[in-house]
Structures are given as C-alpha cells and as structure tokens.
C-alpha cells in the first residue's frame, strides 16, 4: 500500500540504440512482483519490447529511435487490488488496483491504475531523460490505463492494452471507439486521428485520402447527418468512417479498425502521428 511495501532496485538499459536524451527513452517498471518474481518481470519486459513493441508497425521502422529501460521494483506481495471483487489490498509498491474507488463508482474492473506521481518519480530517478513510463502489473485479469502514464496487466492482454495506451500517453491519439453512453462532442477534436470534417478539401488527413474514396466513407445506421457513400470503397482505405471518440454519429475515424479502436494495426493516420513524435530521435 506504500513505498514501504517494496524496493526500487537497479535500472538496466535493455535496448540501447543510442545516448539517453537523444533517443525516445521508454521506462518499464513492475508492480506486484515479489523479489523472487523478478525473473518473471524480466521475461515480461522482454516479451513486451521484443514481441509486442518492436514488431508492430510503425515501431518496427522507428526502432533505432527507441531505448528501453527496465527498473527492478519489488513488492511485498504479488498481484493487484480489485476492491470491486473484494480482492486485496495487497502490499505493492505502486499500489496497482483495478476499479480503484478514487475514480468514482463507475470505475470498472478493467480500469487498472497505479500511483502515477510515484511511478514518474521512480522513472525520473532511474532515467533522467525518460519520455514515457509504463508499469507492468503482475496480474492476470485484463486491465490497463493510459495518459499520462501507462499501466497494463502483464498477462496476455499486454499487447492490446500496452499499444493502445501508449497511443494515448505518448502520441496524443484519441479513442476511435464509440460508447454505449455517448460523450457529446461538438467541436473539432484536437487529436490527429478523429474528426468531424468529411470535406476532402479540408479534412485533417486529406493528403492520405485517395480521390476515388468517398467522403464520408461509411455511415452508421440511424445517423441522420451522414450521407452514405454511393459506392463501397476497397477495404481499409483511408477515409472517414463514422463512429469515433465515444460517439456513433458525427465523428469519424480514418479506417474501420486500428489499435485505437480495437485490435488491428495502427492506421496510416495514427502511424504518421507516431512517426512525427519519434522522428526527432532517429539516428
């Protein structure tokens, strides 16, 4: 439940593509790993960067821009709290918790959060030029959170959660899914991957839209203000597909699916945003 429930150990640069401060320095820390589980933490870190991050476009092409650091943080107990199911509290260094009541009664059992100020403090102490900090939580249940700090359960869901939450935390990307309970948005979102604007002359990703792609590219049933296209475009072309940023109607995403919506590769618009952030770190 506090820093007395664990220790901060050594930091190791597990991917060294250049000097700190001149590369994008990702810091991976663990929570809910006991001292005897550090080898599992090391394996989870390796799995994340080698099997999840590095092979995923556009990170595969941008990999020379990225350093990865591992900070060995141990906890007195394993796992993470899940107060909505009566599990815990467990004594972990960063207080990882699903459905933490600090987020209100709506916090779900999939919302996994940690003590963010403490995590940033530890990341900064270990890697002064850190860019993004991520806490891998030694837990099985699906869960995670992002912005400003990424937390993700280290079980099988880490790929989906980790990439999606990095999209938020590091690259300013918006959620591209809609919501059963719409969150109204009237203006043009500032995020690069969602828009209200289906005008091909002024849309914010217009240079990626082919002249033959209808705009809007798809409309959801019952959305009165979207004029359906007269022809169906080829699959996965960049356009404006209705349904994004928690609204079924009136907001558009660049492709049908993407890590920011579900479980497909980052779309060209998201990939470009990631590239814009990371290109400053390429050798």
């Amino acid at each position, binding site marked *: 439940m506090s820093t007395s429930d664990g220790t901060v150990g050594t930091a190791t640069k597990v991917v060294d593509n250049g000097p700190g401060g001149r590369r994008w320095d990702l810091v991976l820390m663990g929570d809910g790993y006991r001292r005897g589980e550090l080898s599992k933490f090391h394996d989870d870190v390796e799995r994340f960067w080698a099997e999840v991050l590095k092979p995923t476009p556009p990170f595969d092409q941008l990999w020379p821009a990225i350093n990865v650091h591992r900070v060995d943080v141990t906890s007195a107990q394993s796992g993470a709290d899940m107060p909505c199911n009566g599990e815990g509290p467990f004594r972990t260094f960063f207080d990882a918790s699903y459905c933490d009541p600090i987020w209100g009664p709506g916090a*779900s059992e999939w919302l996994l959060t940690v003590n963010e100020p403490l995590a940033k403090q530890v990341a900064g102490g270990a890697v002064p030029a850190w860019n993004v900090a991520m806490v891998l939580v030694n837990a099985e249940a699906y869960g995670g959170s992002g912005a400003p700090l990424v937390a993700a359960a280290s079980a099988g869901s880490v790929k989906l959660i980790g990439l*999606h939450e990095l999209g938020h935390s590091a690259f300013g990307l918006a959620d591209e899914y809609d919501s059963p309970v719409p969150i109204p*948005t009237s203006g043009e979102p500032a995020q690069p991957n969602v828009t209200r604007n289906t*005008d091909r002359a002024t849309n914010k990703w217009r240079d990626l839209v082919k002249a033959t792609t209808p705009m809007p590219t798809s409309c959801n049933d019952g959305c009165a203000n979207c004029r359906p296209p007269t022809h169906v475009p080829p699959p996965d072309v960049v356009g404006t597909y209705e349904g994004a940023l928690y609204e079924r109607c009136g907001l558009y995403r660049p492709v049908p699916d993407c890590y920011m919506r579900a479980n497909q590769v980052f779309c060209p618009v998201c990939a470009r945003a990631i590239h*814009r952030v990371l290109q400053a*770190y390429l050798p």
Partner: protein
Amino acid sequence: MAGLAGEAWRCGVDGTPDHEPVDTRRFPSSWRLTFRYDEEGTVELAGREEVPMVAPGSPGLIRSDGGDYSGSWVELQDQQGRVLFDYVLHDPFRRLLAVHYPPGPANQVVLGPPRRGEFTVVVPVMPEATTVVVWSSPLELERRGEAAREVGRFPLPSGSRGTMDQ
C-alpha cells in the same frame, strides 16, 4: 450534413505545405513541465526542469490560433503570442474513464469525479518561447465538446542550463 464547410474550418495540420512541424532536434534541451490541477480544473505550473534531451515532435500540429478545437493541448508562444509549438494531450485531467476492451462485450466510458492530479509534458527549450499555455475544453460532461479555452498561462525563462524549481 455531408461534411463541415471548409471555409468555416481551420484545418489542423499535417501534411499541409504551409505549416511544417517543428524539428525538435534543433533544440538540445527541453523543459519537463509538471502541471497540477484541482477539482475545479484550475491549473498551476508545479514544476519546471530543464533536461538535456530532445523533445518529442508534435503528433499533429493543430495550429491553435483561437479555440476552434475541443480537447486539451499545451503550446509554446513567443512574445507576440505566436504559437511556436504545440502538443496535443489525451484527457490530462483524467475525467474520462474510458476502458478499451475489444475482447469483451463493450468498451466502457464513464465520467469520473472531479479530482486533483498532475500531468507532465516535455517541450523544446526554444529561445523565442516566452510562455507556455494550457488549453482545455470544459471538464463537465455536457460541455466536454466545446471549444478549448485557455486554462493556464505561465512565463518561461530563457533556457540555458539545467535548473530545477518546484
């Protein structure tokens, strides 16, 4: 509505030949800025550290010239109020509890209670930048989509070497 009228739209961005992104490699050091906020959304600059690191590039310049956009971002301005650099942020005030769960029955999005918190941004130390400005749409559910307004404006010293003040 087939689309919003182009003339009414200040289009943000990317790929437009008249607005190239800032190459942050030109600036060898960066400000790591920590902003603290309270339940009302009042923002203060709680920490400013000059770090010898290259700042991340902007994911998509939004050419923030007056609140046409919703959401949140920070921007660096010069003495004349010109925007030199901006960086869009995803829900820095942590009000929206959006849970991404494509393997499950549905995503969940709920509005959390007002709370205190902080967020950190790394921006380049640009010699011309005199001010950092925080923009945000209102935090209430029914007003979240409104155009962002300025919620914080803080002077920046001319950066030269590592400093830390909290």
